[in-house]
């Protein structure tokens, strides 16, 4: 395991904020009180975790289902290993792609090595996006699928034990 990216105080800040900030005038002071450090230190550490990539963003986390984004398609692509980074960057740059990752194949059942999550108000919208993505692949993809989610079986934020 590499050097821990979080020290004990960082971890306590993660635990204190993983369910969201309190909606009060000074939310970081509320965190500071729980962690036992001063308010400015909470903000300094959140900024540092963001700079290191531990925190991807801080803001309002919308519930896409509740907002009418009913179609959630996990698009998966089988592309040559030596092109995966280049193609991944292309797909990841599209506004409607929320996550884009290289993952290992699991042959013979699972030949796909590039994953891109697409959200849309309905399946027709997602299909339109997928057609555009396929066009960006310049004929090098060897196949793709769209796996729509039919049910959320569990969804919680990241859990770090206190």
């Amino acid at each position: 395991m590499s050097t821990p990216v979080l020290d004990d105080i960082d971890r306590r800040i993660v635990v204190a904020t993983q369910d969201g900030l309190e909606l009060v005038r000074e939310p970081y002071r509320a965190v500071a009180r729980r962690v036992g450090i001063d308010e400015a230190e909470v903000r300094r550490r959140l900024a540092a975790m963001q700079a290191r990539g531990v925190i991807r963003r801080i803001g309002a986390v919308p519930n896409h289902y509740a907002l009418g984004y009913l179609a959630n398609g996990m698009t998966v692509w089988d592309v040559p290993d030596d092109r995966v980074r280049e193609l991944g960057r292309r797909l990841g740059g599209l506004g409607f792609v929320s996550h884009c990752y290289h993952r290992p194949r699991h042959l013979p059942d699972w030949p796909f090595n590039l994953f891109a999550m697409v959200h849309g108000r309905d399946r027709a919208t997602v299909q339109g996006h997928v057609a555009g993505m396929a066009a960006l692949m310049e004929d090098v993809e060897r196949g793709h699928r769209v796996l729509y989610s039919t049910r959320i079986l569990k969804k919680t934020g990241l859990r770090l034990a206190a």
Partner: protein
Amino acid sequence: MTTFEKRLLDEFQRGFPLVERPFAAIADDLGVTEAEIIETLGRLRDEGMVSRVGAVFDPGAIGASTLAAMAVPPGRLDEVTALVNGFDEVNHNYEREHRINVWFVVTAPHRARLDAVIAEIGERTGLEVLDLPMQEAYHLDLGFPLQWN
């Protein structure tokens, strides 16, 4: 949703101000009061439009995480789901339209615990668990522009 609520959701999925009174800073940007921002976000959260206001952590940076998948026979879906969801290490689990139909994210402090969870799910269900850890990310989850009807 009002225009003001839409702007709040569009513009503050990231870049939430790291200042003593962040809601006052947002209020200045949007030309409303701090109290209105706090009240509106609270209501959107209570109505379920917003899951929370806070940090989105990268699970891979905090510990070890993977995307796992299983081909679960339809008749066993409830039983297997209950077993999988019973692990605190499983935070997202989706049913998807494919023979490989159960897809879940497992997050643990280190890889060894991740391996143990996956092995235990495999043993207790008698089903194969595909382990598909991220090799590289090409897009950071920075939120995305919402399209309003």
